């Protein structure tokens, strides 16, 4: 069980030593978590809902929530003491654990921010400044990003780069996909287009796992191509990275890498890390909310952006204890999530006569499953309404993606909707059967999305 340190005495937290290397698997002294414990850890989840959307908002076990409350109460008890004596230490501890988990070289390379959206603002603000200060040139310098980049990140690129005069090149991605090569080819083409257009690519923004539609991008290869093609800097947006896919900073080789810990790493909302490879330009990164620590490096700036609740950033040690109660630790969890989501995805595709949106090796803990064409999904509004309908009428929570058919093909038999199913430790096969049965019922009753607009 998680240690029940009495934080109200202020003893246990200050006595925690900073681990040199996190244990990545349960030791003999720690019993593997039982089914009953697991149920109990997620007993606050709505039991009436088949929650197959861990990808959007993540999850947090009860023992970590309890740890968060203890930190909050420690602060509220005597906030001045907390500020002077506990906060910095606690954040450094969390950062050190993350550094080891992602194989960064130095803890200075790891900053903690609210979420990947904030990390994107940090990195893109630096790019905007380069344009303002004349180091990057309007009409010449460009940023490359994937067409399926997350909506907020696209807006951030627009706000920070386009506004400053930078060009933005989008890499179109095919979907459904049959292999990572399709992505690599498109990426190379985009870089060549930039070159032949006389542009210099200053920054490439690459998702590790795209959000919608969700596929695992071959980031290692894309970073290598960027280096070959003299792209200045690469920023990997791995909102879904840690706890979902392999996250090794040396292997991936990006300049900047961000991942949310509240999606697949069991932290409460919200906490993300931003990795920034140590070199001369990394001292140029600033948190946009400027506070006392301005100029002391991003990690220190981010650790104090005015008075707030930093408790979500302080529970990382307790999360590590939690994941180490599972067979194989976080690696074991990832592997089992992947196997299960592929199995369930294939089960659903077989049941509905559809297909997966990408091969299993391009899925991590999420899979895109084609929905029966007869549901008549014709636009983004249809998927939003269908999602609400599934939630309200069937108790199934799953996001859906609209994929417009190629113009030449008649809409009749073509799959135009894909459900993004997630698998996390709290999921059961019943959740996916419930989804299967809900869709079967809709199909059998002759339901189409057109009915939802009335």
């Amino acid at each position, binding site marked *: 069980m998680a240690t029940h340190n009495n934080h109200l005495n202020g003893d246990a937290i200050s006595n925690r030593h900073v681990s040199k290397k996190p244990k990545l698997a349960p030791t003999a002294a720690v019993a593997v978590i039982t089914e009953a414990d697991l149920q109990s850890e997620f007993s606050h989840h709505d039991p009436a809902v088949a929650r197959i959307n861990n990808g959007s908002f993540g999850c947090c076990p009860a023992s970590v929530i309890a740890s968060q409350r203890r930190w909050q109460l420690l602060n509220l008890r005597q906030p001045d003491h907390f500020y002077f004596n506990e906060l910095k230490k606690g954040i450094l501890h969390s950062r050190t654990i993350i550094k080891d988990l992602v194989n960064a070289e130095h803890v200075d390379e790891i900053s903690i921010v*609210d*979420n990947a959206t904030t990390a994107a*603002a940090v990195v893109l603000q630096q790019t905007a400044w380069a344009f303002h200060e004349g180091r990057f040139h309007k009409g010449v310098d460009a940023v490359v990003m994937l067409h399926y980049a997350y909506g907020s990140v696209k807006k951030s690129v627009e706000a920070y780069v386009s506004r400053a005069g930078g060009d933005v090149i989008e890499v179109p991605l095919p979907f459904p996909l049959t292999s990572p090569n399709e992505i690599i080819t498109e990426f190379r083409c985009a870089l060549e287009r930039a070159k032949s257009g006389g542009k210099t690519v200053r920054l490439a923004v690459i998702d590790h796992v795209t959000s919608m539609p969700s596929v695992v991008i071959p980031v290692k290869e894309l970073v290598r191509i960027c280096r070959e093609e003299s792209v200045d800097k690469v920023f990997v947006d791995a909102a879904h990275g840690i706890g979902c896919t392999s996250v090794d900073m040396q292997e991936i080789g990006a300049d900047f890498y961000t991942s949310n810990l509240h999606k697949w790493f069991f932290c409460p909302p919200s906490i993300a890390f931003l990795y920034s490879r140590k070199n001369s330009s990394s001292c140029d990164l600033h948190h946009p909310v400027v*506070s006392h620590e301005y100029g002391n490096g991003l990690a220190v700036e981010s650790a104090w952006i005015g*008075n*707030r609740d930093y408790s979500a950033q302080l529970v990382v040690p307790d999360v590590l204890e939690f994941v180490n109660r599972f067979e194989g630790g976080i690696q074991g969890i990832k592997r089992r999530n992947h196997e299960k989501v592929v199995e369930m995805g294939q089960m659903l595709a077989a049941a509905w006569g559809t297909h997966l949106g990408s091969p299993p090796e391009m899925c991590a803990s999420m899979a895109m499953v084609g929905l029966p064409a007869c549901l008549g999904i014709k636009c983004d509004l249809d998927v939003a309404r269908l999602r609400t309908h599934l939630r309200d009428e069937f108790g199934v929570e799953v996001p859906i993606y609209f994929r417009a058919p190629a113009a030449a093909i008649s809409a009749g038999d073509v799959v135009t909707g894909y459900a993004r199913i997630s698998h996390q430790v709290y999921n059961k096969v019943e959740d996916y059967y419930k989804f299967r049965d809900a869709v079967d019922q809709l199909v059998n009753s002759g339901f189409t999305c057109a009915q939802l607009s009335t």
Partner: protein
Amino acid sequence: MITLSNNPTLNPVPMPQDDDEDPRNGAVEANDHAHQSPLKKPRLTRPISEPDILQEFSHHQQGFARINNGSFGSCPRSVLSAQNTWHLRFLQQPDEFFFNSLRKGILESRAAVKALINADDVDDVSLVDNATTAAAIVLQQVGRQFADGSFRKNDAVIMFHCAFPAVKKSIGAYIGPAGGSVVEVRLPFPVRSDEEIIAEFKKGLERGKINGGRVRFAMIDHITSMPSVVLPVRELIRVCREEGVDQVFVDGAHSIGSVPVDVKEIDADFYVSNLYKWFFAPPAVAFLHCKNSKGLVDLHHPVVSQEYGKGLALESSWVGNRDYTPQLVVPSILEFVNRFEGGIKGIMKRNHDGVVKMGTMLAESWGTMLGSPPEMCASMIMVGLPSRLCVTSDDDAMSLRTHLRVYHRIEVPTYYQALRNEDRDPKDKDGFITGYVRISRQIYNTDEDYHRLKNAINQILEDGKICSMLPVE
């Protein structure tokens, strides 16, 4: 919609004054309060009792004199409980919460704030984490105006020398590189009258025109942090308008819950106040009021998300997945303050009277004086420390603070001000006064807290110790 009335300890059934206000005619829902004026006389037969107040703050460290509400604020258990309820609702089914509850909840909080501050339009009210974030938002757009030439290189911005350090750094980060120059107005301290401050400010405005430019932007504290004084913001803004200053930003970090805040009357372009300092919110939430926000096309939250371009209020309501619960509890806070005699007005008055009384008591005991007259303070007051303590640096002041915390279980911030003017500066019988404490008074404080401080300082003096000799471990 969350109904706090399920918890009987939070909602004692009030006796209605008018039939149509009778809560028994319908469930007492949190959103009712969003549409009533929160300054209306609370309808209570049983105002909150002393034991209730003790219970509400029973999570504070016991046996500790916490006389620094000004730094980190405080949050009663009933509001924390409401916050927990919101938090668990999110964790229970976050998608449903996001699509059906979050936006509505934030809008209700914003509407409650709008009524509280007499704003015209709820679109003008945004909720952000804290005043530091609000400063980044406002200063970024000022920086852009310098960068794109709307404000010229020989134009200036003006602020007080004692502006909050984080905000000063923000000005340095966003305005300096964009080309504007910064005029700092020294706050006379100790201060005797509003006129002293207004005179210094006018001189500052003149200095801002030295390069042939204009003063484009003024940042004015409503209540300065250190040293803490209530500034005459209405008069200062009037002076700014007379001088043609384009934008005035009032940093009212301490104001809501300690001084009346009427944004129409104050008439700043931007007004921010933290709700977690004096208005019982949990860490952390602040409001930023922007006059005629619809005309402000270039005001953005620096964390760009899906709502970019839809106005600051909407942008701020979604800056990616985070814990928005501090922004959701404003209606619960109103329920809490309305359990007090006179509501928030009553609380403000009693805090003010109490802190002035205790400040005067301390000054008399130590043979020193107050840093400002009572009418220039709200719920905080600066009290001179005996010169025999020898506060000769910021380090000395910090040593004293740490020593008081560790050895006397007293939390009070300390301030060092070097000698400026031998003719003017305050003295006690032993020399010049260069150190001050900033005492706060909030509803959980008792007179005993301040007597402990009085005795601790007197003890240090009796022991013949000075700041640099004080143990801090």
